[in-house]
């Protein structure tokens, strides 16, 4: 695999990057850091993004011989959770099967919250939407009854196991990129090409495995950004403040314009950060962005994750995502600076990113990377003039 292996006579040679990926994946024990470095620049279409993400997220063991046992054990573990928390839930038992009406409004002590939980998830799932752009086929996958049921159980089990957070609207969106990547991988297809025909050939067992994998992967991601979704959403507030601060440093005219018009990015960009860009970018762009965010976290986990690791949030889904959001806002800066409060607010809540491709995302990621380096080397760049209270709202405007 090393270097330029002899290419198959008829097929064109694999691109260099793909070869390096294959080499990194082909070893007995994967070097997570080396893989993360490669994945930072995107996972090539020829490779299994699912496998790469799972390795980087720390779900799939790095050592090959441990893999099948470990995955089998984790899947069993999830199915057990599903039995005890979902299937045995009085709320679920009392409700008609997914998709046909709502659970009853009242129940016994302590179980009411599960009724409410189930009802909310069932309200939100049918209206989980991909950002305009992907094919109708992909939307049909999301609407598919079996997929809806799968998402319901994953979200329900996660919520019950995380009472400090529970289900928050928008987590259904967060689940989408993972789910579509995992699903398509079952037939070695790129995530954008999943369709109902693919679902039709997936047996219950295979789907149950996807469900378990999906659960553990989303759990990994959310554990890094847990306080984005807890009471008062401190993590999201932190990101909003940092975002404003970064923009002030890199695009002062835009920052001044936003301020003069009374536009507060904490609020306008709230959905960007809460849904991890799923609502703002077409699926292909979103998974490309996630390649980098997942890789960024994996890189950091090798190095300084330790005693103090927790309070600075996720290196990928928080720190780097802030820089990405800043670059996205700055990308539109010339247009934004021509807009008044109203036009700008409407513009920001419906960004014209529907036509974005991987190229645009990669350009923005490149800029985000530069910013990260810049601010990391001189942290005082990010020091706001006033004290930066960690506390609740009352942001600038």
């Amino acid at each position, binding site marked *: 695999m090393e270097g330029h292996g002899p290419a198959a006579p008829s097929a064109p040679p694999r691109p260099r990057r793909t070869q390096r990926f294959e080499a990194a994946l082909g070893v007995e024990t994967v070097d997570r850091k080396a893989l993360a470095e490669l994945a930072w620049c995107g996972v090539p279409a020829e490779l299994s993004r699912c496998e790469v993400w799972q390795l980087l997220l720390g779900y799939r063991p790095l050592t090959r011989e441990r893999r099948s046992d470990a995955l089998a054990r984790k899947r069993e573990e999830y199915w057990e959770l599903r039995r005890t928390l979902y299937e045995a839930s009085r709320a679920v038992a009392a409700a008609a099967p997914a998709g046909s009406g709502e659970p009853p*409004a009242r129940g016994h002590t302590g179980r009411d919250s599960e009724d409410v939980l189930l009802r*909310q998830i069932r*309200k939100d799932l049918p209206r989980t939407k991909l950002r305009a752009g992907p094919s109708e086929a992909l939307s049909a996958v999301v609407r598919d009854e079996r997929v809806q049921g799968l998402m319901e159980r994953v979200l329900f089990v996660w919520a019950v196991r995380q009472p400090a957070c529970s289900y928050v*609207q928008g987590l259904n969106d967060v689940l989408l990129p993972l789910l579509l990547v995992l699903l398509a991988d079952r037939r070695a297809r790129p995530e954008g090409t999943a369709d109902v025909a693919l679902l039709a050939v997936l047996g219950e067992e295979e789907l149950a495995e996807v469900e378990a994998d999906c659960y553990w992967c989303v759990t990994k991601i959310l554990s890094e950004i847990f306080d984005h979704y807890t009471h008062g959403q401190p993590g999201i507030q932190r990101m909003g403040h940092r975002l404003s601060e970064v923009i002030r440093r890199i695009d002062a005219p835009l920052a001044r314009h936003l301020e003069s018009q009374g536009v507060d990015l904490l*609020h306008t960009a*709230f959905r960007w950060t809460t849904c991890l860009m799923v609502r703002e970018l077409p699926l292909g762009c979103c998974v490309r962005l996630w390649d980098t965010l997942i890789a960024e976290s994996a890189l950091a986990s090798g190095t300084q994750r330790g005693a103090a690791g927790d309070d600075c949030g996720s290196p990928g889904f928080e720190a780097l995502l802030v820089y990405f959001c800043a670059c996205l806002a700055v990308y539109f800066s010339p247009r934004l600076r021509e807009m008044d409060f109203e036009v700008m*607010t*409407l513009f920001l809540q419906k960004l014209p990113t529907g036509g974005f491709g991987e190229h645009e995302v990669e350009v923005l990621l490149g800029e985000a990377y530069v910013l990260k380096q810049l601010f990391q080397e001189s942290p005082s760049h990010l020091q706001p003039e006033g004290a930066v209270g960690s506390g609740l709202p009352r942001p600038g405007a």
Partner: protein
Amino acid sequence: MAADDAYDHLYKIVLVGDATVGKTHLLSRYIKGDLPRAPTATIGVEFATRTVPLAVGGTVKAQIWDTAGQERYRAITSAHYRRAVGALLVYDVTKSSTFSNCAKWMEELRQNAEPDIVIMLVGNKFDLAEKNPSDRQVYYDAAAEFARQNGLFFAEASAVTAYNVKHVFEHLLQEIYNQSSKGRGREDSAQSPSGITVGERGGQKQGCDSNAC
């Protein structure tokens, strides 16, 4: 949505109420004359605007903030109540819990919005109750009584059939105008019989609880 339309007043309005009572649908019906093409749960806040002529008082531009109904988003959404002069407090006529929570929502508004905020209570999904009366969980009289006790305006509406949608928004805007012109003592505009604002009547929530459900 053109920036050049002229107006006499600019009012900030918020749409509040439990998740999935139909706030976004009401707004879409009012602004676009249609239901959202791809309905999704509102995350945080969403903004829309419309300029309308009042029956009395000229033209008003309404800046309307549609808020996420889920409890978790309260920290973000309540920051938007600031300087709001009007609110549509929405519940679902087919779900009693969404009505009993209205007392809580009023408390939120009182704490965060302008003290003399004008509130319109809206029982949405009237079409469902009409189609199948046994689905109705909140009776008109109970809601009207709750509104009367708390100084709210009240109507039932349906975003799906458009029933009363224009009315609830524009009645609210008119009342805000009436209220503010009265406050400034500029004119004695015709007062609605129930034109009482919530802020002046602080501690009435015991009364509402008994009516809820």
